[in-house]
């Protein structure tokens, strides 16, 4: 049984079908990307998976439990770090614990040991505005982690970072995922990022959005040093670009960043 399964998801807004009959799954420990042009309904799918909205059709299962329309089971992270400006970092990251009923003091005590492994030591009692973009993003990740769900949905979390910071945070994220046994579903429109990080890639196209194709990326994630310079990498990239270009044009579609 897969860790997370979504079957036949259809979501409409105001009579317009945004995504149609989507089937995806996520296995334990996997990092799977959802790649598609802007407007293909990736974010809508995430809203359904995280339980924020109820789909017109279809169901979401987490370890066999039906969680359709039930928020609080899967953690969610966006491009914006969305740290609350008035809370110190330690209170920001331990917010999921407080929301579940922990006292502020207990929550702080529980969060504190993770600061060093998330590269945030010394930042506990600072405010978000006093941190760099990369640090804020790591704090957002720690918050995601402390929500203790086994699945994280990441909606273009790194797209605001510069290339070098992005590279570092990729490496670090894969490392953390390994350590804390987290499985990730990852939205991106960056083809390179998707190939580099993923075990599998779902390519979403169309209007309404549908899963067009699924790609399994070989070699495995742990053997990808210098992968971006290999022929395999370019082959994957060519394949994806062809699929995306063949897809019917979307209204207001933007260029993919390649």
């Amino acid at each position, binding site marked *: 049984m897969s860790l997370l399964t979504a079957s036949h998801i259809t979501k409409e807004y105001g009579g317009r079908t945004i995504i149609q009959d989507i089937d995806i799954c996520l296995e334990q420990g996997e990092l799977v990307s959802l790649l598609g042009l802007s407007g293909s309904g990736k974010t809508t799918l995430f*809203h359904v998976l*995280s*339980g*924020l909205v109820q789909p017109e059709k279809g169901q979401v299962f987490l370890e066999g439990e039906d969680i359709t329309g039930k*928020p*609080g*089971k*899967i*953690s*969610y*992270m*966006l491009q*914006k770090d*969305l740290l*609350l*400006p*008035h*809370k*110190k970092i330690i209170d920001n990251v331990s*917010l*999921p614990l*407080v*929301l*579940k009923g922990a006292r502020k003091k207990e929550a702080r005590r529980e969060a504190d040991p993770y600061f060093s492994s998330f590269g945030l030591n010394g930042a506990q009692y*600072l*405010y978000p*505005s*006093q941190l760099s973009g990369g640090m804020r993003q790591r704090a957002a990740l720690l918050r995601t982690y402390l*929500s203790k769900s086994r699945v994280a949905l990441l909606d273009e979390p790194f797209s605001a970072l510069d290339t070098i910071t992005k590279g570092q945070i990729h490496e670090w994220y894969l490392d953390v995922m390994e350590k804390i046994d987290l499985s990730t579903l990852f939205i991106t429109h960056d083809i390179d990022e998707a190939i580099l990080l993923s075990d599998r890639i779902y390519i979403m196209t169309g209007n309404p959005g549908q899963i067009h194709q699924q790609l399994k990326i070989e070699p495995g994630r742990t053997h990808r040093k210098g992968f971006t310079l290999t022929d395999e990498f370019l082959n994957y990239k060519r394949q994806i670009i062809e699929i995306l270009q063949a897809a019917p044009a979307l209204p207001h579609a933007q260029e993919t960043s390649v």
Partner: protein
Amino acid sequence: MKEKLENITNKLPAVLALAGIILLWQVLCSSGVLPAYMLPSPVAVVSAFFGDLPNLMTHAAVTLQEAAYGLMIGVVLAFVMAPLLDRFELLQKAFYPIMIITQTIPTIALAPVLVLWMGFGMAPKITLVVITTFFPIAVGLLDGYKSVDPDTIRLMRAMGASRVQIFRHAQFPAALPQFFSGLKISASYAVVGAVISEWLGGFEGLGVYMTRSRKAYAFDRMFAVILLIVIISLLLMWLVNILRDISMPHLRAEHSARN
């Protein structure tokens, strides 16, 4: 230390301008260009201020009490109403225009009616202060609640937060800056509102003192009251600033991070 120095140099032009105007005023009065029955000199005002200080303080205590009660009720009312208006759109559609209309009614027209209804005691004064102070605070809070990024609310819902938790952890703190801007305006409105309603009927308070001084042609005392009202308003605003800094320590941190 550096900050302090900066503070002083920032305020220097304002202090110099004010000192210049007072000096000019004094010169015009002492030289006899302006007769004392039209404009008392600054020195005369200050001496009237200290000469009748005990009496002034007794009246000020009454006015301050009215302003404080009114402001408190206004704040509490705004705190109760704003989340309701924010939560229920129908309520907002129904009451927001009414709130705006109450703001267009001139205070001076409303005060006698309130006296007629509630007598010459404190009640009509407090009511007037409530009406004038409620609006800026309620509007500030409402705008503040709306200023939260919808993605923040989505994220918190995805974490399983209840509506109350979202309000407590995100919306309410986000509204604090606007709340304090509203409170700053309201604090000075409160004093002015109380004084105006005292003009129009009452036995005690700075407004009453003012009316009596006017009737006695004691213009130096009238100006002394104005001076006192200015001082009180400035003190209240300063107090609000201190409260704001205590409630929002992260703003101070941001400020020092930028420098």
